[in-house]
């Protein structure tokens, strides 16, 4: 039997047509794919998410040593990480950082007592009395070693540099407490006393030799370490005991990219809000050494699942200390290698005098080179550019500055008390300097973007919000606010204008009860599950410094059975992509 041409074509189409059609459908971008397509509703029922869970098993994560030299070189002379600076990727829909293995909301989220602050990250008070077994010594420039007490608890022991009593140990104890209160995972650090005759060498303790081999540790190895430490007149040593962290050490994390062996690490580190915001906290306490090797990832098991917890460690090079001595005068003011001041200084015969060379520092015991009068938050920088810091946008620094404002004077005093400074004048000075630096940070970074906070919408359609910069008296009140109302379609993402309200300043004279109130000049959607979007901007702002206040903060409310619930907040909704700058993100 022979087939006609028509029949043959028809058979061919019948056989291959469905396959081709299927391929075309597969190849054609659906609504859920493509870079610009929204993948679903803008807000889910569980928004705003307050905890970012690690859902995958990370037990295959392996220690990843980081080369200090390479890390420093790359960051000094390059800009590792993503080229475009966009909104931090790990914030929830109300622009906050959910709790996670990176960060836990503490100050500003819940009340912290002075006792809690003094206690620090845990209730551990240092090693128990008795013999302490040394298991490992530091290979770094600072002396130190690991001990285990008779309860089998492990500690890393750090010392003060020679000639600088209380400098490094004080900084470590104080900054540990402040950073813990600010939300970071840090090991407990307790100031204590160590006596040589209290130490015994562990049976399996070894030291690494320059040729890469190991030999059994001797007492003389410890003496080498002790010789590089400040010794008390009675022969003992003031030390800080850093509590051993739970879990297997995976070495540090880099401030850019992700760990390839951690399935839960999906947000590039340079785009993490808490790492960008760390710039603000580091500026506050002059923590110029926030680099990869001063962090520590540990593999922990929680709820039966192995996950990676990310810690900040080593704060003995903060405040006025460099860990191994007094802080360099340059620290905090200029990178180790920075072109502009270098080219100014090269031909100037020495008459280009850096402002930081003239700074006067106090001489109180344990304080070192720390002060507040010449501190300029926006210009502060670490020793080496940090990939997350150079991408920090105004909304990142605002977030951090707001957290910082929750650290009250009393909390600062409690943290400083844990530094056990023997000179009360040193303690007073440090408290005063930290308070003044905190205020400068508030003035700088709570005002650099529209500072509307705590928006709420009542059942009756009354919108309230605060201007935190005005509340804290960092800025004069604007003449008024412009509030624009939109109906918001959560499925399509479209907003439809409803009305506009101009309100005068309604702020009460005394903070912190000040609230701006405005009743919607339009009828709000009535049904459950409906959304409204409200854009809030300031009008008549004083001077150019606060020009950014006229750019609206965009907030979203969803009607629930309990009334309107805040589900979204964007502080810089229309900001274009920026670029990594000298110290923070800069406009392209």
């Amino acid at each position, binding site marked *: 039997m022979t087939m006609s041409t028509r029949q043959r074509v028809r058979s061919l189409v019948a056989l291959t047509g469905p396959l081709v059609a299927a391929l075309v459908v597969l190849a054609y971008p659906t609504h859920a794919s493509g870079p610009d397509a929204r993948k679903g509703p803008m807000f889910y029922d569980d928004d705003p998410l307050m905890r970012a869970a690690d859902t995958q098993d990370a037990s295959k994560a392996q220690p990843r040593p980081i080369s200090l030299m390479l890390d420093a070189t790359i960051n000094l002379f390059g800009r590792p990480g993503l080229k475009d600076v966009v909104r931090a990727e790990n914030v929830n829909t109300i622009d906050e950082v959910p709790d996670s293995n990176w960060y836990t909301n503490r100050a500003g989220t819940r009340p912290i007592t002075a006792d809690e602050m003094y206690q620090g990250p845990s209730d551990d008070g240092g090693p128990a009395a008795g013999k302490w077994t040394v298991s490992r010594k530091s290979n770094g420039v600072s002396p130190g070693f690991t001990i285990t007490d008779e309860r089998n608890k492990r500690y890393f022991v750090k010392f003060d540099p020679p000639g600088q009593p209380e400098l490094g140990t004080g900084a470590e104890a104080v900054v540990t407490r402040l950073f813990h209160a600010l939300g970071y995972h840090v090991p407990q650090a307790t100031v204590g006393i160590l006596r040589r005759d209290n130490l015994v060498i562990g049976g399996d303790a070894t030291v690494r030799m320059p040729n890469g081999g190991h030999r059994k540790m001797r007492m003389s190895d410890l003496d080498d370490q002790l010789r590089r430490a400040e010794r008390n007149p009675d022969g003992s040593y003031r030390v800080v005991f850093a509590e051993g962290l739970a879990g297997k050490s995976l070495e540090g994390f880099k401030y850019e990219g992700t760990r390839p062996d951690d399935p839960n690490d999906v947000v590039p580190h340079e785009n993490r809000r808490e790492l960008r915001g760390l710039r603000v906290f580091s500026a506050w306490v002059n923590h110029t050494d926030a680099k990869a090797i001063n962090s520590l990832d540990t593999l922990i098991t929680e709820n039966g699942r192995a996950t990676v917890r990310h810690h900040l460690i080593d704060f003995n090079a903060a405040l006025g200390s460099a860990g191994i001595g007094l802080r360099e005068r340059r620290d905090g003011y200029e990178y180790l290698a920075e072109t502009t001041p*270098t080219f100014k200084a090269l031909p100037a015969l020495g008459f280009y005098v850096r402002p930081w060379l003239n700074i006067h520092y106090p001489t109180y015991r344990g304080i070192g080179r720390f002060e507040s009068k010449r501190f300029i938050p926006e210009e502060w920088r670490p020793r080496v550019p940090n990939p997350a810091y150079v991408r920090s946008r105004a909304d990142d620094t605002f977030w951090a500055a707001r957290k910082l404002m929750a650290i009250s004077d009393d909390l600062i005093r409690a943290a400083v008390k844990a530094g056990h400074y023997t000179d009360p004048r040193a303690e007073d000075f440090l408290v005063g300097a930290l308070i003044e630096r905190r205020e400068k940070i508030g003035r700088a970074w709570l005002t650099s973007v529209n500072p509307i906070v705590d928006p709420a919408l009542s059942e009756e359609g009354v919108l309230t919000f605060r201007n935190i910069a005005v509340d804290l008296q960092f800025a004069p009140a604007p003449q008024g606010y412009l509030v624009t109302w939109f109906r918001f379609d959560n499925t399509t993402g479209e907003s439809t204008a409803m009305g506009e309200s101009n309100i005068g300043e309604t702020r009460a004279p005394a903070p912190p009860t000040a609230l701006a109130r405005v009743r919607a000049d339009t009828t709000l959607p009535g049904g459950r599950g409906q959304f409204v979007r409200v854009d809030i901007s300031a009008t008549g702002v004083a001077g150019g410094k606060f020009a950014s206040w006229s750019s609206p903060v965009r907030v979203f409310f969803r009607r629930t059975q309990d009334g309107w619930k805040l589900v979204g907040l964007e502080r810089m909704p229309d900001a274009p992509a920026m670029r990594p700058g000298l110290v923070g993100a800069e406009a392209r």
Partner: protein
Amino acid sequence: MTHPLLSCFTAILFTSSVTTALAQDPGSRAEEQARQQEAKARNVTTYVAPWIEQRLLAVENAGGFGVARGLVVKFGDIKRGSGFAPGIGYGYTTSGGGALAVKGGYSIKNYKLLQASAQSPHFLADRILFRARARWQDAPRVPLYPLGSDPTDFRTDYAETKTEVSGEALLKPVRFLRFGGGLGVEWFTTGFSHDENPVGSTLFDTLPGSGADPRYIHSRVSGAFDLRDSEGYTRRGTLLSATYHNYHGDSNGAYSFDRIDGAAEQYLPILHGNWVIFLGLWASTTMTEDGGQVPFFLMPDLGGHDLRGFSDYRFRDRHSLNWTAEYRWYAQEFIDVAFFYDAGKTVSTRGALDFNGLHSSIGGGVRLHTSISTLLRVELAHSREGLRFLIGFSPVGP
């Protein structure tokens, strides 16, 4: 048979429903994030450090670049005036902290070096150290000028080969004091092969020690009071040092002599080191028994590294004196700029060792350094004999 168009339509419906199901909205933010993590879990990889990071980690774990370990590229350390001299070395550090190293170098001026060295571990908490080395160095064209305090600018070259086996002990009882002592055997061979230059040949032949090829037992002791931050680079501090050498030669002691080198250096920081005034004074003197001679190639010399407006070995005689004043300023943590003034002379009698009739030079340059070492000096110096461009890899001084 089903119509083909109907088959296609059915396929489209089926495929579309499958893809829709696969791309379905997560349903919650938590699920959305879980999906991202799940997707990454399918592609988890172990981090493999790139080669350069592995090498740097090995260096960092070994304690830095100063620790000999494996094959390394080396520069310099042949006789002064060799020009750019790359080389290759191999180091091995023992489990006790001692080190063994071999290296070879070859310069653009055909200078050659072979060396094997050993270093003990640091004993008594870095207070005592022993070193030994066997070294062969060949310098085929060393600049040679007439001796004296104001010699003519006639220049020729000579060839010098030195072979050495030596050992030394270094003692540092406290941070600012150090002592040293060393003993070694040194062989020298010198020669002149420029037949086309009879004047040069005559000069060479009339110099003490030319062609004598002496062999020495060289012993030395030294002491230093050193308040500088480090020997390789500093912005403050004082150095006072002296070294006594005894060259005991064969040939009936005709070329035996003693030599003393002294140095006084002061670094004065102004405004925390924004400016540094550096003053350095160096003197060398030699002594012989009656009738003894100091071979010209072991006489104190000036030029190049210390009297920078003059070429290497420009002045040479039994005694030398020179001083330097330097105005240095901070350009950056690793970069300094400096202006300097050098003055010095060599003389045949110790009585003439004064500050009269010094040859001088001025100049300026840029230094690249770390907190403890000078990595590179690029300088331009001027003297009555013209302009010189210098590159150095160590601090100023002999």
